[in-house]
């Protein structure tokens, strides 16, 4: 089976259409329920072989993909960069060709180099899903963010969403930016100027220097990005303490808003740095809903790329009944 609706690979949201994005979100809906069953398994991908190829450390994304694959009854293999031939100097293209020679169906790849997923997708016949490439994109994270926003607010179009923090180094920010703008949200970014990429305003987003400005703007959602702790050593910020004091998302700052603001975070969180614990654990946080939705969205992506048709997703999940 080949997929006609999404193409062969999912490498990023930049070149997807709004309809393709909506299709994934809509397809995720029936899959949410699978994870609530006592027997969390449907036969949609029975007989498919999927390799999770992780060249970078990951806990949440790798586990989420693995659950999604197993709940769709696929056979999965995990390959981590350490301990594999990759650590012995094998090139990405050789790794790809060797996997291909073992006749697999799909590869989920995470890689520290931007463009690595596209590189792989252009060289092998299997479907390739980008689980994060360098500072480029992390499309399934943005898709689960979109689904979580839609669950909470009932819509995405017209909402004001601000990405807060280290946008420069964030693939989550880039994917969110494309997904949100394509679905009609107003998007802003906010953080220290040292962590804002060059030319970002040309992508149709507002740029704020302070969290207070984003709140005054009337943000409905703050998606708080993880601050990589090594940014301090590389001179982008002076200290974590000052970062928290100036840019941290705290209850005191949120109190300025006349309406409740939905709080999101792609994880893992640095409590007391980019986000205050009281906010992360507060009533308007949907951080754990994001994690739950991650499995459903990844099931939808795997299912659609394998050639499944959206209208059959319901039937697919009933397959074992």
């Amino acid at each position, binding site marked *: 089976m080949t997929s006609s609706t999404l193409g062969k690979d999912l490498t990023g949201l*930049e070149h997807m259409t709004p309809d393709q994005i909506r299709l994934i979100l809509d397809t995720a809906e029936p899959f949410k329920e699978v994870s609530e069953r006592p027997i969390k398994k449907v036969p949609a991908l029975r007989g498919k072989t999927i390799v999770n190829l992780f060249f970078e450390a990951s806990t949440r994304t790798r586990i989420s993909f693995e659950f999604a694959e197993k709940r769709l009854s696929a056979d999965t293999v995990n390959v981590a960069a350490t301990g594999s031939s990759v650590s012995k100097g094998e*090139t*990405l*293209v050789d790794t790809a060709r060797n996997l291909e020679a073992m006749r697999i169906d799909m590869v989920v790849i995470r*890689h*520290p*180099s*931007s*463009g*690595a997923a*596209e*590189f792989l997708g252009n060289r092998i016949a299997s479907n390739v899903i980008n689980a994060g*490439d*360098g*500072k*480029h*994109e992390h499309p399934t994270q943005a898709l689960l963010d979109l689904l979580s926003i839609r669950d909470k607010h009932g819509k995405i179009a017209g909402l004001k969403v601000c990405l807060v923090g280290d946008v420069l180094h964030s*693939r989550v920010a*880039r994917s969110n930016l494309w997904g949100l703008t394509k679905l009609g949200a107003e998007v802003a970014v906010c953080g220290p100027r040292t962590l804002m*990429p*060059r*030319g*970002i305003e*040309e*992508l149709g987003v507002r740029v704020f220097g302070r969290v207070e400005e984003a709140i005054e703007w009337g943000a409905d959602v703050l998606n708080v990005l993880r601050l990589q702790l090594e940014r301090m050593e590389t001179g982008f910020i002076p200290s974590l303490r000052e970062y928290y004091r100036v840019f941290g998302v705290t209850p005191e700052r949120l109190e300025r808003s006349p309406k409740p603001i939905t709080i999101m975070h792609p994880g893992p969180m640095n409590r007391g740095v980019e986000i205050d614990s009281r906010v992360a654990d507060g009533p308007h946080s949907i951080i754990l809903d994001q994690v739950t939705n991650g499995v459903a969205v990844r099931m939808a992506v795997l299912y659609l790329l394998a050639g499944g048709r959206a209208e059959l997703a319901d039937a697919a999940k009933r397959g074992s009944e």
Partner: protein
Amino acid sequence: MVLQGGRVIDPSRDLDEPADVLIQDGKITAVGRGLTAPDGALVRNVKGRIVAPGLVDLHVHLREPGNEDEETVASGARAAAAGGFTAICAMPNTDPVTDNQAAVGFIVRQSGLAGLARVHPIGAVSIGQKGERLAEFGEMVSAGAVAVSDDGKPVVSSHLMRTALEYARTFHVPVADHCEDPTLAAGGVMHEGLVSTRLGLKGIPAASEEIMVARDVVLAELTGGHVHLCHMSCRGSVAIIREAKERGIRVTAEVTPHHLTLTDYACEEYDTHAKMNPPLREAADVAALRGALKEGVIDCIASDHAPHAYDEKEAAFDDAPFGVVGLETAFAVAHTELVESGLFTLPQLIRRMSTDPARVFHLPGGGGTLAPGSVADVAVFDTTAKWSVDPAAFHSKSRNTPFTGRALTGRAVLTIVAGTIVHEL
């Protein structure tokens, strides 16, 4: 030998007219109409063709010694001849580095053995190109070096650059600098701008080049030395050079065919054949570089021919090496983009690819002219030939070009070095 019936363009004498060229004993002995061929002379009918001084490239990387699988002096000289070049200058970032008279002599010997385009060595500024101690300029120049450079890397230390400029004055050679502030460029793989932001690739800001251009100009003024600025890529550099030249500072500069024709959008799809240092920049930079070359603010075109094995470029963008080959496409790309577009006349282009670069490095034996009495380094071009770039047909050992498949007009059909044919189509 007689080249009969061509259009002779010799920018060194502002000559552009139909004429025959007579070559005897490796020298040009006459240029004029209706020359009679001496008995037994080789005659080439070049009617409808352009007869010009052979092209001169001040900036190539030939990988010998060290990476002979990517290029050798001989294969580079063969590629040069095919591109209409009769003289090329080889950068010293080989393995080991060309930083002493023996290493310089090796390049001269390999060039002589190849007997194709002349290969002039450039010696290193610092021993091992480590940026610490000056290399022996005097001995290297005696052995045949035509300039000194740590190209591939900038001369980071301002003190070293100052002493290099001062010391090089004694030997009348320029110091060629790769202008890059390493603290701003660190980790960067393409131009810093909208495209790098979208692709999530670390950018190299234009300021990284401009800062070093400004510093080098200041040091050239301080020392009275001749600084040659390699592969200029951005409009800010152009402004600094223009102002320096107006003030009479001894600065010369070069620009590559790719920086004159491509922008950072060529990096879309993570095409590693568009990865070079300095990076491809924006349309406004391309426009400024073209204008500067036309005005003479930038003196010449140089290819920065940088061969790499095919599998090195077959990698993620971050992991691929910088650089593209250029000897076999330089003239055609420049001719198509600058002359066919009406921006340059053909004599203006030949000046910037032959007469001016030969002048900038004061090449031994001359070059860049067809004046009677000068050495017979000649290129004949068919400026109507249409062809498309097929890397598999290159004479270079490497194939890493950003111009694959591009339709071009104009190519060298005959290249002559010291009266000997080294390339003929």
